[in-house]
């Protein structure tokens, strides 16, 4: 047993002299970086305390994070109403667990129901009104806002993207032209300008009666851009599908929309799922740009917390904490995507 393990190690790391040299150099680099890092992050760090004076100078001051944890998570959301956000989070997790249950009966109906009902419930819970105390969007912030932006922009972007992808492959020239122009336009401009455009230009152009909420404007801007990228991802899936599928369905006499819904899209979306997951991860990261319109997402709250004179010099801690949250979320998403991809491939028998 040990002999086999040692042999694998030798093959993988020390196969040739060059390999050995490279391995040793890599080890050295890793050692030089990780030891001070772990020392700063964990060993010398201060975990308990109430103010800046409690922190040791050499290590990380996690007291800062603990003191402002609520803000990092919820922004300025009223403390007594935070249970609503937690409740929504719980509902989303439960929905996810439910959908991942393999033996779920009537999967399509359940998925559709959840996708339609849950967002509306979400808006009601977080925004308030109809029995719950209203909380204005300017008070939303932190991780909660980042997730809200990503999820709702994604909810708009995915169907819009699918429609655009289908439109781009349509035989009707007007629809095809319109889809191409839409996709190329929103893909060709930086997202920072789109958010600026949506948030500031829109109210200038629209008459003052249409007062669209600032957060909603940012979501719409993000959604349009991501829809363009999603459209390209879905198009990749559509292109990978053999033509024969659609032709056979046509021969059977099915109409265009039935073909898409029952035959083309289910297969195409499965193929496009990795690309779509990547786009969603990109969307999640791009939510940081709402900082330019004074919406305080996770990174915005981190920067605002740094401006507090009582906690000067906590730059590293704030950015490391926020960065870690982003990293774990995105990594988790990409691993989930890979897992689903594997499951779908085995299901397909490929």
């Amino acid at each position, binding site marked *: 047993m040990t002999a086999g393990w040692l042999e694998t190690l030798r093959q993988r790391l020390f196969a040739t002299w060059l390999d050995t040299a490279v391995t040793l150099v890599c080890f050295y680099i890793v050692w030089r970086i990780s030891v001070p890092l772990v020392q700063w992050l964990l060993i010398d760090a201060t975990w308990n305390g109430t103010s800046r004076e409690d922190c040791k100078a050499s290590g990380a001051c996690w007291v800062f994070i603990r003191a402002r944890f609520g803000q990092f998570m919820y922004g300025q959301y009223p403390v007594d109403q935070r249970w609503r956000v937690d409740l929504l989070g719980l509902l989303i997790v439960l929905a996810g667990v439910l959908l991942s249950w393999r033996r779920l009966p009537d999967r399509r109906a359940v998925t559709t129901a959840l996708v339609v009902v849950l967002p509306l419930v979400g808006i009601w819970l977080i925004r308030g009104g109809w029995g719950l105390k209203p909380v204005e969007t300017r008070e939303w912030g932190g991780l909660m806002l980042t997730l809200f932006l990503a999820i709702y922009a994604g909810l708009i972007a995915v169907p819009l993207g699918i429609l655009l992808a289908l439109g781009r492959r349509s035989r009707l020239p007007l629809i095809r032209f319109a889809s191409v122009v839409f996709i190329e*336009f929103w*893909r*060709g401009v930086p997202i920072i300008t789109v958010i600026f455009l949506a948030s500031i230009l829109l109210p*200038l152009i629209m*008459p003052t009666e249409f007062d669209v909420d600032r957060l909603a404007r940012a979501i719409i801007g993000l959604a349009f851009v991501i829809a363009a990228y999603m459209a390209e991802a879905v198009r990749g899936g559509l292109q990978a599908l053999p033509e024969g599928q659609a032709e056979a369905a046509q021969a059977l006499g099915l109409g265009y929309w039935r073909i898409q819904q029952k035959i083309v899209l289910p297969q195409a979306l499965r193929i496009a799922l990795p690309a779509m997951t990547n786009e969603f*991860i990109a969307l999640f990261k791009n939510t*940081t740009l709402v900082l330019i319109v004074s919406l305080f997402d996770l990174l915005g709250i981190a920067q605002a917390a740094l401006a507090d004179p009582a906690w000067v010099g906590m730059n590293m801690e704030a950015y490391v904490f926020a960065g870690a949250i*982003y990293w774990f979320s995105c990594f988790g998403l990409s691993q989930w995507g890979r897992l689903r991809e594997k499951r779908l491939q085995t299901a397909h028998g490929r």
Partner: protein
Amino acid sequence: MRNASQNLVKAGIASGFNFLWRDSGIEVPFTLTGYKPSDSILALLWVGVVNTLLVSACSIAVATVIGFTVGLLRLSRNWLLSTLAGVYIEFVRNIPLLFFVLFWYFGVLAALPAPRESLSFLDVAFLNRRGLSIPLPNDVTGFRWVLLATVALVVVQWALARWARGRQARTGRDFPTWAVGFGLCGALPMAAFVAAGALTSWDVPVMRGFNYRGGFVLVPEFVALFAALSTYTAGFIAEVVRGGVLSVRQGQIDAARALGLTPGRVIRLVVIPQAMPVIIPPLTSQYLNLIKNSSFGAAIAYPELVSVFMGSVLVATGQAIEIIAITLSIYLVLSIAVSLFMNWYNASHRLVTR
């Protein structure tokens, strides 16, 4: 739109494109175009465009090199090497670019010394927190010969390569093209450079008061943005390259090895040419992303298009609609130009399949 313009007129907000010809009065700390604040806003717009192109071009070049290297390392047989490459890729792909930009900017700033304690290179170039000051020649005419010499070198190299390939096809004999080519006239550009440099007087940076004056200053904003964009995009390019290389069928590699080709030649002559068609389309979108991501320069005061035009000029003139329209058009033109170029490159290198 008519409603909008009427609203604007009533609201007293100036509109129209006349503001482009007004004096800008805005200072820019880094420009290649010789812009002065007394120039028009159109000149300022041009500064923004040039700075965007500069940082994008440099970052694309370096990101491609790093990306290909890391991508190939990821496929290395050495487990530690491939894991480290994997860690790098995963680290970069899961964190927003803004973090990297801020890290490089404040990290770079913290590492560099203050102007009074600059790192000096031969006492003509100085590296400090304000940037890298390098001497500039006062008279650039001598450097035309350098350009000519470089062109000559390229032409000779190309002709030599063609001849060598033809010879190999006929006789099967190998020819060390690069060594011969460089041996023959590689020294030419360098000699021309030294000669031209000696002939002209130089504007050497001199410490005056607070900073070095004279010469050319490469600001830390540029370095930080360049480093952030390169390292970030390199992670994505690495994944694209890995996907491309993995798409080459194992049989090809085995056959090449069976023929006795060295691993270097296998990669260069068999794998990469077949992987390129798979790599190019996603590589194009990474390049486009990089160009668009250059707008993050606004976060650290690098004077590229968004921070100069949609930032300073918008605040100075208040004409949001015109400015946003111009900015979006410029980015669209850039994106379409890059897409078209890559499409042409893709088409010209497409493998002819039966």
